């Protein structure tokens, strides 16, 4: 009953969303403010409606209604309540509904106030947001109904149906299959919502861009209005990627955090265009250039967001045939094609209006370097995009499936990332408008010299590998330039304002948060790069079968197998845990306990056994010792196989991630909106003068 009610509210949300889009378009055509206002209110109504739908789904999940297919697939009665709630985005149908929920929340937040100053943009923002929302709600209604129930038909078959087939009996499984254990990790509980938050919030700047294109308001108003949205979108997307990496490191048990898996790349691609966009909008704001290009970037970001969801949701990655079999794939495909071609059509229509207001005066100016930065981001995007779709292309044309794995991406992206780092070191020192080799050289020679000295030092003390040395040189250069920028700014302010150095630094950052928040992000990239260089170039691994008290040696560590034991947990999962003692030289460092968790779920329809390999990790700033229990002899339990990684410097990656998020927070934290302050002040002045009268 509740399930049908949920489906009802879902359909109602869909209808209201379509109405909002239609009313907004009609309102523009009829120049009717009333119709647009009606559209806006309908848009606002979608949020409570979708929330109600979500609430119904959560109720079903929490109350073990296993006759609902989705509930059966992602929960089991032994799961704790919080996991039953988060199981909402643990499966296909639920995660699509989660998308819609966020979309309606954001669209409502944006349309909550009436945009008096930008009234002509409003209807088109509503149209864009509603079309996107309607698409996702439609996927739930027509293809992936989270409220479909299990029925047993007359011939005994069990299947999921939205409406009961004739003569079929509702089928009530005793227990559900339970959430995939891999998804029970805290990182995986927060990772999808963060990623989706990032994905969905990029729709907002896109909606404003489309509104600007349709209405012909091609100044940078749309960029200024959505600047903070974009930064927050970037924050969430970045945070989602980081959490995904951490999850992989902690749970997947392959010694790394990023495997160039198509699913990872699907989320990484909109991040690339989004990052390029964040950089190049600055040129439009400062110099009135690259307007066309910014439109291209935001359109690409939107399409890649949808494409990313498509890749992960349609099953196309395992095979193009899976794509053809599920109805959801073609629906996505058509939607992406349609939105992309309409957006590009609009862009071409306004192309002439988006011409640059200023001209490039130097190939070394800040804006020119920004352009190269964009080129590099696009280059990485091309590599990623082609790498992801090539197996599909190959299967389509030759029938042969191929794998595009890490070596492909690393070989192609390594140089591009290095070049990006070089730019990160150079660009902050170049001037807007005009820069020459001399001015740039004057600013750059000192940091270059010190970075070279550091590299030479590392050559004699740490490594002779050229790739590593180049990496460390670039890292040092960026770090020095960025620190120098902070130091220079703070010194100047210290002298002009007679402040202490630290309060000058503080005020400097507070006054120019986007700029210095950006520099903090640059520094975080340096820290992350140190971690990545460490694991990519210096990772060591070994594997061996040990008898009790035997040892493996790797990278100065000695790992001794001490014991192994089985545990049975009340929620039905088993754990086999080995204990090893870790020594460095003769010094005893402690015990680690790599383990394997088994989740066995007996069920009416099919039994499942899933295992998780959880590493034992000893983490320091110098390196991580990462031990996996690969195999053991259950009968005697005297021998076990361990795989051991030494991941040098990898902790700097996580530290960098924290600094990164801090940097974005500095840049994006809401403050008094410069755009709104004068209006508000005027308002107040008017009120007070009226009161005086």
């Amino acid at each position, binding site marked *: 009953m509740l399930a049908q009610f949920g489906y009802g509210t879902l359909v109602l949300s869909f209808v209201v969303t379509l109405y909002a889009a239609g009313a907004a378009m009609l309102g523009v055509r009829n120049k009717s403010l009333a119709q647009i206002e009606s559209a806006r209110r309908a848009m606002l109504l979608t949020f409570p409606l979708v929330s109600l739908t979500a609430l119904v789904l959560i109720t079903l999940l929490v109350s073990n209604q296993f006759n609902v297919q989705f509930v059966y697939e992602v929960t089991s009665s032994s799961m704790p309540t919080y996991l039953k709630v988060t199981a909402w985005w643990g499966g296909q149908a639920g995660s699509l509904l989660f998308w819609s929920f966020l979309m309606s929340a954001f669209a409502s937040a944006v349309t909550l106030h009436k945009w008096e100053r930008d009234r002509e943009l409003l209807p088109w923002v509503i149209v864009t947001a509603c079309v996107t929302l309607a698409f996702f709600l439609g996927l739930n209604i027509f293809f992936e109904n989270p409220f479909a129930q299990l029925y047993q038909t007359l011939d005994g078959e069990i299947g999921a149906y939205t409406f009961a087939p004739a003569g079929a009996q509702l089928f009530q499984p005793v227990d559900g299959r339970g959430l995939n254990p891999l998804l029970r990790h805290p990182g995986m509980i927060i990772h999808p919502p963060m990623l989706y938050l990032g994905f969905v919030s990029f729709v907002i700047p896109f909606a404003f861009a489309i509104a600007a294109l349709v209405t012909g308001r091609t100044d940078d108003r749309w960029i200024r209005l959505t600047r903070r949205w974009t930064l927050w979108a970037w924050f969430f997307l970045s945070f989602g990627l980081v959490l995904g990496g951490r999850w992989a490191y902690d749970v997947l048990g392959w010694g790394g955090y990023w495997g160039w898996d198509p699913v990872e790349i699907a989320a990484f691609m909109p991040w690339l265009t989004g990052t390029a966009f964040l950089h190049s909008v600055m040129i439009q704001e400062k110099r009135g250039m690259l307007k066309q290009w910014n439109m291209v970037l935001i359109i690409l970001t939107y399409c890649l967001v949808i494409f990313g969801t498509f890749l992960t949701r349609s099953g196309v990655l395992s095979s193009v045939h899976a794509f053809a079999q599920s109805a959801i794939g073609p629906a996505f495909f058509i939607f992406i094609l349609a939105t992309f071609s309409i957006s590009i059509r609009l862009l071409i229509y306004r192309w002439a209006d988006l011409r640059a207001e200023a001209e490039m005066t130097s190939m070394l100016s800040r804006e020119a370097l920004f352009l190269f930065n964009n080129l590099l981001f696009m280059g990485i995007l091309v590599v990623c995009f082609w790498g992801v779709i090539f197996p599909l292309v190959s299967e389509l044309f030759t029938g042969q499936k*191929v794998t*595009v794995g890490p070596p*492909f991406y690393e070989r192609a992206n390594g140089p591009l990332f290095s070049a990006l780092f070089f730019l990160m070191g150079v660009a902050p020192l170049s001037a*807007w408008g005009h820069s020459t080799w001399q001015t740039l050289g004057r600013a750059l020679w000192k940091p270059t010299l010190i970075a070279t000295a550091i590299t030479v030092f590392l050559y004699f003390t740490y490594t002779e590998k050229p790739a590593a040395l180049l990496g460390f040189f670039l890292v040092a250069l960026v770090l020095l330039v960025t620190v120098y920028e902070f130091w220079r700014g703070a010194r*100047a302010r210290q002298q002009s304002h007679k402040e202490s150095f630290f309060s000058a630094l503080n005020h400097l950052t507070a006054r120019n948060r986007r700029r210095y928040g950006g520099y903090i992000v640059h520094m975080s990239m340096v820290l992350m790069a140190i971690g990545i260089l460490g694991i990519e170039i210096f990772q060591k691994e070994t594997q061996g079968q040990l008898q009790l008290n035997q040892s493996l040696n790797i990278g100065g560590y000695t790992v001794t197998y001490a014991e192994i034991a089985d545990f049975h947990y009340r929620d039905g999962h088993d754990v086999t845990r080995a204990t090893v003692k870790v020594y460095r030289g003769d010094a005893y460092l402690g015990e680690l306990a790599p383990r394997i968790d088994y989740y066995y779920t007996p069920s009416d329809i099919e039994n499942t056994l899933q295992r998780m390999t959880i590493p034992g990790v000893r983490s320091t700033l110098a390196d991580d010792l990462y031990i996996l229990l690969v195999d053991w002899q259950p009968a005697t339990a005297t021998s076990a196989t361990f795989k051991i990684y030494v991941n040098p410097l990898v902790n700097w990656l996580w530290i960098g991630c924290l600094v990164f998020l801090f940097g974005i927070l500095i840049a994006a934290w809401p403050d008094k909106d410069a755009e709104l302050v004068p209006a508000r002040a005027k308002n107040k002045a008017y009120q007070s003068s009226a009161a005086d009268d």
Partner: protein
Amino acid sequence: MNRQLPITIYVLSLALVLTALTAGRAFAQGPQPPTDDEVNAVAKELFCPVCENTPLDVCPTQACRQWRDQIRSLLAEGKTSDEIKQYFVDTYGDRVLNEPPRTGFNWLAYIVPPLVILLGALSVVRTLKGMKKPVVVSPAGGADRSEARRLAEDDYAARFEEEVRKRK
């Protein structure tokens, strides 16, 4: 008794030497079982066709464990890494390799990205060249100066540069 001793010693030492020699030969020539690390080094570059996108050396499934055992026995037979990879390609197709083989249609995988990036780079350079107006260097630097000033006015960085210059 005394006469027999040297012979006994001789026979014994001969036996000892022979044993040592044969043992040595066995040690030098006999098949040494491949280590886990050697197996993983090969497995690292392979993907099984079932587990999506998980390199064989870290894949925990039973099927992949059997593949690794197969690699082990092939290594024990004296096969090289390339021969083993070829064996898996012959049996399961190109998708077991971690990159498309550089043959025929697959060349597209390697050609397209650099080509597109090159085109992008060319168009960026062309845009820059096209946008770049000839800088008029007047002796007084009048036009340039005013352009610079205009930039300085709306740009924090330039203002800041000015500040620093003044204080030097």
